[in-house]
């Protein structure tokens, strides 16, 4: 919970990691390239006094996570989003057992979302069933650009992917987080294209599709599909730190999202440990649309409350204390949305 000027905010960090990018865990040069790319993101967009040293960044462990996300970071709840990257790291990038173990120890604070790869076929489906039972999964995180043998990506509307989505429906996994990445086969296509999300969102209306990083670098395409689908949400991981590094661009992103998606479909996330939630929450609550962007309405306190936690709480059935709720429930799709969403 974060409190400022008499207003109390229930905070859900909808995208956190417990990763191991240390040299001892690297399988090949790509593992090193991947964690270095993350570290450049971190250095580029963090305030100077929030920048970690490289060694800490490669592995920080469970205690540091609990401190950064909950003790210092104001989060009431956080959701692990698995990033396996088994082709790059010996025990994977995100540490499945450590994160799941931590979530089991603190079920009131942490939810663990696992991953699957539809390219694992029938065997992977079996594994998904076992994982769903053992981990009590409510959500999964899919990285469509994950390398897998000769393949460097897949689309959500491929036949095997559909079978996995149908299995999710049966298993009660209702939140499908999707992160698009730079590779896809064939390379003739734009790997960041979100058209496949559009197709499956239409076909599986009982699933919620949370597009991570609000579709960046294809914000416009994401907005266009999300405005037409009732079950497509935008996760702010990676977009959040612009609130500090490039506040005008952040205002444009938020302004566009509020216009096209509406205030009930946007989820706060730090992408910890890419960035730490404390300064993101503080700066977001202080944030306002600048005067030189008159085309966007000012962002309201109620909108900030929904984005910071109430929307994610609705997706994950989290029990929000009465005093932190709004008169109208967040995630209520009957709430008035922006003009773009009605077009």
């Amino acid at each position, binding site marked *: 919970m974060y409190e400022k000027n008499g207003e109390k905010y229930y905070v859900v960090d909808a995208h956190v990691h417990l990763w191991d990018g240390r040299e001892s865990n690297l399988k090949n040069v790509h593992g090193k390239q991947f964690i270095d790319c993350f570290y450049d993101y971190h250095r580029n967009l963090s305030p100077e006094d929030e920048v970690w040293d490289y060694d800490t960044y490669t592995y920080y462990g469970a205690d540091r996570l609990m401190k950064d996300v909950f003790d210092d970071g104001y989060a009431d709840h956080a959701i692990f989003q698995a990033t396996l990257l088994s082709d790059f790291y010996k025990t994977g990038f995100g540490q499945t057992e450590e994160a799941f173990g931590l979530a089991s120890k603190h079920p009131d604070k942490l939810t663990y979302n696992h991953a699957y790869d539809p390219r694992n076929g029938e065997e992977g489906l079996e594994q998904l069933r076992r994982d769903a039972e053992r981990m009590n999964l409510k959500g999964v995180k899919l990285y469509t650009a994950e390398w897998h043998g000769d393949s460097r990506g897949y689309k959500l509307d491929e036949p095997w992917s559909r079978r996995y989505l149908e299995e999710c429906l049966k298993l009660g996994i209702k939140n499908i987080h999707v992160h698009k990445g730079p590779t896809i086969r064939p390379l003739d296509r734009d790997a*960041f294209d979100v058209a496949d999300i559009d197709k499956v969102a239409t076909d599986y209306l009982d699933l919620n599709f949370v597009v991570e990083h609000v579709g960046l670098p294809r914000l416009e395409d994401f907005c266009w599909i999300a405005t037409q689908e009732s079950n497509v949400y935008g996760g702010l991981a990676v977009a959040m730190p612009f609130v500090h590094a490039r506040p005008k661009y952040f205002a444009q992103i938020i302004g566009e999202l509020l216009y096209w998606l509406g205030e009930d479909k946007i989820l706060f996330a730090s992408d910890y440990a890419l960035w730490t939630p404390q300064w993101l929450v503080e700066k977001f609550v202080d944030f306002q649309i600048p005067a030189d962007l008159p085309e966007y309405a000012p962002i309201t306190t109620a909108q900030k409350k929904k984005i910071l936690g109430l929307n994610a709480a609705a997706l994950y059935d989290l029990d929000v204390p009465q005093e932190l709720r709004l008169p109208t429930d967040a995630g209520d799709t009957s709430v008035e949305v922006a003009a773009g969403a009605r077009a």
Partner: protein
Amino acid sequence: MTAVATSVVDEIVAALSTVTDPELDEPITTLGFVRSIRVDDTKVVVHLRLPTSFCSPNFAYLMASDSVDALRRVGGLGRVVVLLDDHHDSDKINAGLAADAGYVGTFGVEAETSLDELRRIFRHKAHTAAMERCAEALLKDSAMTVDDLHQVTLADLREGPHKEALLRRRVAIGLGVHPDDPVLVDEDGAPLAADAVPLRLRFAKAVRISIEGNSHFCRGLLATRYADVEPDGSSIRVTNARSTS
């Protein structure tokens, strides 16, 4: 022998400045993607670099192979060698360029036919953003409202960089540049009815914000990754080892 600008180097830089990052719609020279140029009596060697190891390999390949084509058009440079540094597909792309293998030859089973459609999509995005800039400038600088925009033709646009950029991008997607041609067009280049303009313009704005935002982010990441990047891209390391200039 660094930073000696000669006419041959100027020609090389000019050629490379015709190569754009399709996603960002800007020349690779001003983005800082050209790391170094070395020219001697028998060849030119250009090193390219990108903001991350994981920039999309298809766009990386497009920029590298476009650079080869642009340098070959200069003539008289001898052998043209373009190398992409520090990318997850550097080995693959550099080998493909050295062997003149083409896109399909470079990426093998990962490739299907060509990157023409990919290029087309981003040319259209670039045009959409340029169209929005012109429309917004009109709304800002004149008494015109959104309701008038469907009647606006190229002749109505004030001369300047926004209009020049729009004309270039119209040509790139096969649209005409006649003064009577409408400015506001749909995805296929067809004129818009008055009631279709607001949503088209609103989406065009999202496209423009997206391209501009990506461009700033990529520049920032490049500067974080490489200490020698200047904001205007003037950080190209030039070596002229020719015996005569």
